[in-house]
């Protein structure tokens, strides 16, 4: 016999479900410019508070304020805006192409464009990203050919991956974009290994690891933090917290830790939390962490606070698990609109130029799509050879695979 009351299991729930009024009153948002910018060689234990705040540069009026502001020229900001718009236009067309049956599958970046587009600009040529499936902005911002991306998505005869991989799981060594896997979190620890290799060789290149909020629950996330911490690997450990892992709200993965950035504290890692919809803040924080890594000062964990505006994928319908209008209530707004307003406030951009740019960019994407479709789409036109099934399993084809290829008639 016991005097204790029966135990009960705690299962976290999002504040609001479909039919309810979106409510983000629990999301504490720091004022733009309010968070200090530490010295690059700061001791992790001296900036523990940064894991619980949000670094922001753009205020409500569209001005860049505070110690993290002023790192990008007008020219660079205009390029950033253009890249985000290009990614959004690309998403729009590929989503439509999936609905038209030109590909089996697509995943959008809607609302998260600033994260990958700005981060890429803080890296140098030769650095390596270990992305998830939602970082195509890393490719776009590095001027990877849109046609090649589409060829992969259409699995056509010009697909650089010869039709072997599901759409959006790109690979480009040349553009510092490690081959994307369907298995979540695996690349996070691989990034640490790549960074360790760079350190072993006395190189100056750094690696960037990418993971979503949901996948931080995978064991490879924890391995990555241990190895990065132990070997002080030159790696930037990025967590894109878009609030949702398919239908599961971020509280399920986060548990009671308060923020995802706070996960880094127990590993002795400097951990920053940043407004993921603020292109300037993302760039500034990325640059800080990249410089820290490049100066051999070790890894940094960064949580990008953003919101997954679109469906998880073309196979998902978010209206069955969250309010339809939730994204409109998201307090950090839209990354494209915020940068656009900033540039207008600065007097280097205008509504007219924006509208014109939107049209130009869409034309560019449509032009690329036409070219890609000439190489075929999933069910029509040119496609990879059946022979390609058997190539590349090993550097040299072993006899048993050769026999199977011959059996298949090739």
């Amino acid at each position, binding site marked *: 016999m016991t005097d204790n009351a029966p135990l009960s299991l705690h299962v976290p729930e999002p504040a609001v479900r479909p039919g309810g009024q979106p409510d983000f009153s629990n999301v504490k948002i720091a004022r733009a410019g309010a968070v200090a910018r530490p010295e690059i060689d700061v001791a992790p234990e001296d900036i523990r508070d940064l894991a619980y705040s949000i670094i922001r540069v753009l205020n409500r009026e569209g001005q860049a304020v505070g110690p993290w502001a002023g790192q990008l020229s007008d020219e660079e900001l205009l390029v950033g805006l253009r890249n985000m718009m290009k990614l959004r236009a690309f998403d729009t067309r590929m989503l439509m192409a999936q609905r038209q049956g030109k590909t089996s599958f697509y995943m959008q970046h809607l609302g998260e464009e600033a994260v990958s587009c700005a981060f890429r600009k803080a890296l140098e040529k030769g650095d*390596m990203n*270990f992305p998830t499936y939602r970082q195509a902005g890393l490719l776009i911002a590095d001027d990877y050919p849109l046609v090649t991306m589409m060829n992969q998505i259409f699995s056509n005869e010009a697909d*650089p*991956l*010869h039709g*072997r*991989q599901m759409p959006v*799981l790109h*690979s*480009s*060594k040349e553009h510092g974009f*490690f*081959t994307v*896997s*369907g*298995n979540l979190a*695996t690349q*996070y*620890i*691989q*990034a*640490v*290994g*790549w*960074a*360790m*290799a*760079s*350190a*072993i*060789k006395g190189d100056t290149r750094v*690696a960037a690891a990418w993971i979503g909020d949901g996948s931080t629950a995978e*064991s*490879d996330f924890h*391995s*990555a933090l*241990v*190895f990065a911490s*132990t070997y002080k690997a030159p790696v930037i450990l990025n967590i894109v917290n878009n609030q949702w892992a398919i239908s599961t709200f971020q509280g399920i993965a986060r548990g009671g830790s308060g923020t995802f950035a706070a996960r880094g504290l127990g590993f002795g890692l400097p951990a920053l939390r940043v407004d993921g919809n603020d292109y300037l803040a993302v760039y500034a924080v990325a640059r800080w962490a990249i410089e820290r890594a490049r100066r051999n000062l070790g890894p940094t964990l960064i949580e990008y606070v953003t919101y997954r505006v679109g469906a998880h994928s073309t196979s998902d319908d978010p209206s069955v698990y969250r309010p339809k209008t939730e994204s409109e209530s998201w307090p950090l707004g839209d990354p494209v609109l915020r940068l656009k307003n900033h540039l207008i406030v600065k007097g280097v951009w205008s509504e007219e130029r924006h509208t014109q740019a939107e049209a130009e960019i869409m034309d560019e994407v449509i032009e690329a799509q036409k070219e890609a479709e000439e190489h075929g789409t999933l069910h029509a036109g040119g496609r990879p050879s059946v022979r390609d099934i058997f190539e*590349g*399993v*090993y*550097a040299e084809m*072993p*006899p*048993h*695979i050769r026999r199977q290829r011959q059996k298949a008639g090739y």
Partner: protein
Amino acid sequence: MARMTMIEAVRSAMDISMERDENVVVYGEDVGYFGGVFRCTQGLQAKYGRTRCFDAPISESGIVGTAIGMAGYGLRPCVEIQFADYMYPAYDQITQEAARIRYRSNGDFTCPIVIRMPTGGGIFGGQTHSQSPEALFTHVCGLKVVVPSNPYDAKGLLISAIEDPDPVMFLEPKRLYNGPFDGHHERPVTPWSKHDLGEVPEGHYTIPIGKAEIRRTGFAVSVIAYGTMVHVALAAVEETGIDAEVIDLRSLLPLDLDTIVQSVTKTGRCVVVHEATLTSGFGAEIVALVQEHCFYHLETPVVRVAGWDTPYPHAQEWDYFPGPLRVGRALAEVMEA
């Protein structure tokens, strides 16, 4: 030539590879300063420094995951999992990542890594120091799987594995580390110094992955084995007086099918031996291949001798381990049929 144990041969392979190629790095749990719980990496850290040979946190997925990343950079990591029984936390990295990177990236990235792991039983290792998980690797396209049975092969195959452009699972039968073992646990162990295959060149040499070796030529029956079971099979042949041909596969994937087919078409009989559990073990693949390629030459059904379909027990070690008596009975069975 020098006399080496399998431990020394494995160490020599890593030593030579590290000396020849600055991109070879060696790490794992207790692998650095201490030199490994089986002494396989002794002295390597002192010779090559802490950034070429180092201790790792106890995280198998971390060890393999970082190795994959290092290979993506251009290094050639040769990492250790302390016991094959503990590779399971790394299974995701091995099967979904290492094995697939070349294929899924169309050669944009590759994964030239070696994952060494002590395997097999016969040492009172109980459930988690005795397993033979090779079938869990041979089922994975993109991996190579190697199991040496003696010091000479161990060194030549490990150097080949390190130089191979693809991921190699290198399973070292720990029962053979110090000497050949034929299953006669009641007799004292003979050291490798008293065995011909303990003669190992000190310099660089390779043994091709994918090539079997005939350990005993015979005409009555083909025995197909690898690792510790090669020695058990040889003992069983000796004791039964049956003129068997004993094939040491050495590589399970890719497999030397030609040598198997040549032997079985000659003898018309076949016994497959492994320590791993029977059901869906690698023996099933060999039996299927023999049936497909040698059907009209077979005089009798192919017989398998394997570990029972149970976890590896502790007290009943010698009732579990497929020793020369059981192998001998199988030989007699196929000869009488």
